[in-house]
């Protein structure tokens, strides 16, 4: 093997850095949508590398549902300071008040869907023309068909039938006023690729990705953290378990995994051995309907 050879993670990294530089060059006001999850943490690492030694030339934007894990919020603030990026936080709570929206009801009342309102308002407020997201095509079948540069209309809607052909490594980010583009630099990464990259790069993660003790209830086989945002009913049994999170979203729609893994090596080994998909194991919201993601994307979701 010649020394002029990139391993698969280096190839993926080179492709993503290329995409980041295209974004910075083609758009006036890009923003990186940051959730505190491992995928957006990976995005920040790639953006850092793409523009080094300069700073990341766009802000990190967090659409805060108010249902976050405290550890993820602390990490978010730390990371923004660490990379010297501007952090913009907009709260779903405020959107609900301003727009007189109805809070979702139920045991796991999730504001996940309402995020779309806050996101579109934030895009409008800052006139963002490109929003960078950490979606991966291996996650789900609607995403498998979405472009790396995904053009959205004035309402943020994705129309799968009107996608631009995306050829070679040439990205066409031209848009009309009012439209914006969602860009997914890690489209071609799988969950395991992200974990392996985090391990190789020794990227620090929020503590909830590692084993810790937590009070949970068991709901349809999934472990849900006890929190003020989840309705605990009399017949719920609260257990103390050693858990970690495989993905980090809202406390209302993210399930924990029983685990004793306390290091990245141990976590990656567990992910390799698992026989259940990331969404299947940890996302409560996707189990509602088979086409849940397709519907949300068409409605302007990430």
């Amino acid at each position: 093997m010649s020394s002029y050879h990139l391993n698969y993670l280096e190839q993926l990294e080179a492709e993503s850095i290329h995409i980041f530089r295209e974004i910075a060059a083609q758009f006036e006001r890009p923003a990186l949508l940051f959730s505190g999850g491992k995928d957006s943490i990976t995005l920040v690492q790639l953006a850092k590398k793409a523009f080094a030694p300069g700073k990341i030339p766009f802000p990190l934007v967090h659409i805060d549902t108010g249902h976050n894990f405290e550890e993820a919020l602390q990490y978010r603030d730390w990371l923004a300071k660490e990379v010297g990026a501007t952090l913009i936080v907009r709260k779903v709570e405020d959107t609900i008040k301003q727009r007189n929206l109805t809070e979702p009801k139920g045991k796991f009342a999730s504001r996940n869907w309402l995020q779309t309102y806050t996101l579109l308002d934030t895009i409008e407020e800052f006139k963002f023309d490109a929003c960078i997201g950490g979606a991966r095509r291996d996650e789900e079948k609607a995403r498998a068909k979405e472009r790396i540069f995904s053009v959205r209309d004035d309402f943020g809607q994705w129309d799968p039938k009107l996608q631009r052909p995306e050829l070679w490594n040439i990205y066409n980010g031209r848009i009309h006023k009012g439209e914006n583009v969602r860009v997914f630099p890690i489209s071609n990464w799988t969950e395991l690729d992200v974990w392996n990259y985090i391990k190789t790069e020794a990227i620090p993660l929020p503590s909830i990705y590692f084993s810790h003790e937590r009070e949970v209830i068991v709901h349809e086989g999934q472990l849900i953290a006890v929190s003020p945002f989840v309705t605990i009913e009399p017949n719920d049994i609260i257990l103390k378990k050693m858990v970690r999170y495989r993905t980090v979203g809202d406390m209302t729609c993210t399930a924990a995994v029983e685990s004793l893994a306390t290091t990245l090596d141990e976590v990656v080994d567990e992910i390799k051995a698992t026989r259940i998909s990331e969404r299947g194991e940890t996302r409560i919201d996707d189990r509602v309907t088979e086409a849940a993601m397709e519907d949300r994307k068409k409605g302007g979701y990430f």
Partner: protein
Amino acid sequence: MDILRFITAGSVDDGKSTLIGRLLYDSKSILADQLEAIEKSTKNKANGEIDLALLTDGLRAEREQGITIDVAYRYFTTPRRKFIIADAPGHVQYTRNMITGASNASLIIVLIDARQGVVEQTRRHSIIASLLRIPHVVVAINKMDLVDFSKEVYDQIVADYSEVARQLNLKDITYIPMSALQGDNIVDASAKTPWYQGKPLLEFLETIELSKDVNLEDPRFQVQYVIRPQTEDLHDYRGYAGKVISGIYKKGDKVLVLPQQIETTISKLEIAGVETDEIFAPQSAVIHLQDDIDISRGDSIVRVDNVPQTATEMEVLLCWLDDKPLQTGNKYLLQHNSRLVKAMVRNLEYKLDVNTLQRQPVEGSVKLNEVVKATIKTAAPLVFDHYEQLSGNGSAILVDETSNSTVAAVLLS
């Protein structure tokens, strides 16, 4: 471990979905909950086996409207390699879909139904593979179970396809007899084809040599973005960020900035902020030059002893991808990697029939899925290579300035 990107060409009838499903299933890329969902959908099947084709089932919008959206990407990994499949449907809008999916592929699997042999569709897919210069071709002769794993049938198809390949000048072709449905010659060598000495499909995909596909001979680099931090400690920093399209660059190399035609020397090279002595394809890197030159996005940096063409008029093969036909008098934007210039299409020389490869006179407009030979005139010079010789620096797209759509794939020559 590296990455193999491949495209599967064929229709549902050829067993394409079953083949992809089989690869995902047998490489254990399908997890328990995903399998459970498939099993639910398969409950009507009498034999109790799961329907592997459902693993690549589309969106609800597709099912409701009976359409298929161009390309879906699938992923699987074995201990040897990561695989990215561009899954392009064979029927509807075939040329557009295939070109989109094939543009990044280094291998194509052409599926042939053993009962049907080489048909028009086989020919069409192979023509596109040949136009786009996909380096490796696997001819998957599928549904061998339906012809009793007959060596005669297999030999006949190999003979027929060899003739197609000869006409199209396709190189590196591998024939594999298989049954995607029953798993013969997919992961393990099948006992039913003792006459077949080659590798099963997955092993072949895992072991095919890819390092030679990367051109390390001709250094090509286009500036994507200029990094100028303009902070106190970095106020003199000016780095040209871009991807090494091909070749190797070393610190101290004498280079030419094009189209300006200015000679200078590489003073420093960086990858992700870390200094290095050399950079190579396909790395994303930063180049520093000795002299202060006005360089912006889209400019090329090449070695003085290995220079591509610079021109404002060039012959091209255009694959039209838009519902609106080509208007020869109109101005379009041509995007060549990161370089954007105004362009006009002139002299439509001939139309290429993608089913027969015959050249026909262009009568009327150029419509969706049609391929034409033409001349393009650009408002500013392009620095490029022949697509056939160096595809990474010989490909471009046309963008309609009024709709912003990507309307054509352009192969430069």
